């Protein structure tokens, strides 16, 4: 009995350490976002202080408002996620279920695109987009994001599709359902967890992306990850504003995480236990 209690205490203690390590930067940003410039630099760091929303007011409605950047981030992330899922679900299904010539090669090709170091392809991407006049446009950035989110999504989804017993599909065919109808009505509801996980990851990657965004964006389309850097100027670091923008930028991701948590946990375990499947 005591041994069991001890074990539970140890698990809780270790979890707490991990949670603290994870929470600290977030908490730090959150607290600093509510401080004045003077309080941020105070030593010892102030835990009790008069909170102010001035930093938020400045970054949202001031002269260097990041509202347009948040809008840019949403358009890019949602656009990327929607298009990725529309293409990745049928593609993953095809790779998992159908027999067609060049299937192995196609599978490898999808994976190979993931192997290129991003820095190596940034100049070619820049030149291509420049050539078709898509620098600093939503379609340009979404197109580039698709180039890494699609293969990622397809490979993630393939394993979920492979986990579904083929007999379920057969049953649907026997009842006279077409392949597409089967996919929509039978298969997709089964891989809901996997789809949620994929949606969250694709959205997250697009939302957090910085390297391509900084090179391929401009004044018109500038996601919040890039705009955030403008609060570290050559003259000084605007700590309170930087913290406020960080919190605002983290918020959608955290909300999405909480919202999709149920699916994610389920999806991850499903993938982990039964992963592999036929290949």
């Amino acid at each position, binding site marked *: 009995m005591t041994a069991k209690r001890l074990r539970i205490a140890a698990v809780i203690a270790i979890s707490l350490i991990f949670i603290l390590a994870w929470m600290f930067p977030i908490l730090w940003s959150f607290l600093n976002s509510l401080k*004045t*410039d*003077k309080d*941020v*630099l*105070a*030593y010892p760091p102030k835990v009790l202080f008069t909170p102010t929303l001035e930093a938020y007011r400045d970054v949202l409605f001031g002269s*260097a408002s990041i509202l347009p950047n948040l809008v840019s981030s949403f358009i890019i992330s949602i656009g990327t996620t929607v298009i990725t899922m529309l293409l990745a679900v049928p593609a993953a299904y095809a790779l998992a279920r159908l027999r067609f010539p060049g299937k192995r090669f196609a599978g490898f090709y999808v994976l190979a695109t993931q192997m290129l170091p991003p820095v190596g392809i*940034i*100049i070619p991407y*820049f*030149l291509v987009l*420049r050539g078709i006049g898509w*620098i600093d446009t939503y379609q340009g950035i979404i197109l580039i994001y698709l180039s890494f989110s699609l293969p990622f999504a397809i490979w993630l989804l393939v394993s979920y599709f492979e986990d579904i017993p083929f007999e379920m599909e057969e049953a649907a065919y026997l009842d006279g359902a077409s392949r597409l109808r089967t996919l929509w009505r039978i298969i997709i509801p089964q891989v809901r967890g996997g789809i949620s996980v994929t949606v969250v990851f694709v959205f997250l990657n697009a939302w957090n992306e910085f390297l391509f965004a*900084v*090179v391929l964006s*401009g*004044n018109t389309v500038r996601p919040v990850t*890039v705009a955030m*850097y*403008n*609060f*570290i*100027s*050559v*003259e*000084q*670091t605007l700590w309170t504003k930087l913290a406020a923008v960080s919190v605002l930028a983290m918020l959608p991701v955290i909300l999405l995480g909480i919202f999709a948590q149920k699916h994610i946990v389920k999806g991850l375990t499903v993938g982990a236990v039964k992963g592999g499947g036929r290949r």
Partner: protein
Amino acid sequence: MVFRSTRRTFLKGSVGASAMLLGAPAFLRGAAAQDNDLAPYTSAKIDWKQASGESITVAVIPASYFDNLISIAPQFQELTGINVRFEKIPPAQIRQKCVIDLTSKTGTYATHAADPMYYALYAANKWAEPLDRYLNDASLTDKAWFNFDDIIPAWRGADSVDGKLYGIPYDGEVTIQVYRKDLYEAKGLKPADNLEAFVANAAALNDPGNRIWGAALRGVAGAGQNMYIYPSIFREFGGEWFKGGKLTVNGPEAEAALTWYVDLMRKYAPAAAQNWNWPDIADAFSQGTIGAYIDAHSSASVVNNADKSKVIGKVAYARWPKGPSGKRVTSIWNWGFPINAALPDKRKKATWLFIQWAASAETQARTSYKFAGPAKRSGVNRTSVWKDPAYIKLMSSFGNNFVEAAMDSLQHDTDVDWRPRVPQWPAIGDTMATAIQSALAGQATVKAALDDAQKRIEPMMKG
């Protein structure tokens, strides 16, 4: 030369001062509303409208001195009919983005805030236009009006490669000693005249138990971070970058210089300073925890920021301490504007008109002491503005000896060979910066760090 705003020089000064007297009421009004009279520009004997209808994009960094320029840019559009669009890019990315633009010859940015150490690379690849052609073309430049020689010579020199000009300085800085005059006075210290005295001052003030550290210098790795300060120390110790035509970074002078840097930082700077960049030093100094630092004169605005500083009224300035070689070598910087060589001819002209407008004495004044907003620019590019009593008065609020220290350093302490100006600089700067930080952090001995850097740099110079 020392510029002091006494009543006598104020009255005696000929053109500048009398213009100032006449302009005084306008200046007072200027505090409320931005001066937008185009007459000071139209007096130039050039056709400002010759490139009317062109559109140019200018890449700048987020900084108050560019914000001021952006806010009066509508005046430029009215004057020239050229549509100018600014893009703000963080300093760490502007180099990368502009080099991509220049290599691909896409002409996205007509001009950009350029790192002076990149001109050698631009020139070697013909990415930027030599500017003498524009400067000497009477249809494009009214030489008497633009008065190019008025622009601070050290910055002009930094924007030239082999005597050819590639960029026009817009805003710049010079490194000086910044110290706590109250702490110095309490201990009977004087601002250091040589590097030894700088260490001795730091030792006298160092009291970590009471959260006062003697001194701090930039420690974080970066071609523009610790490799901005180290070259000055290296040169003050008598170091030469090129020995018999070969770039050498591990000679005895280098060892002595880096040892000095490491000792100072280890003994008298906060432990975290090995990862600090200039804003961190200025933040710490503004909280009263640092006795002295050597960094950009422009950091004065941070340590004097009423919103967070606790040391206002306690700050004074001095030139770099002398090194064992007897020289003072300051580190200088400026954001200059080059012309992208990939532009069509007419757009090049439009870009030149923009550069001429931005670097002109009038625009420099309108973005600094005549600016209607709160931001005080301390890096104006012109000697005449630095001598202007209104500007001196504004700058003197930063503390004792500010204008004198900055101007004397710019005139006497600059060194053309301060950093090795070669096209390979970006890679060399990064390699050296990593070596310096590893020595500061104690991951390698001074000798091992420098020898390793030398080994890495040699193949770069062959390529």
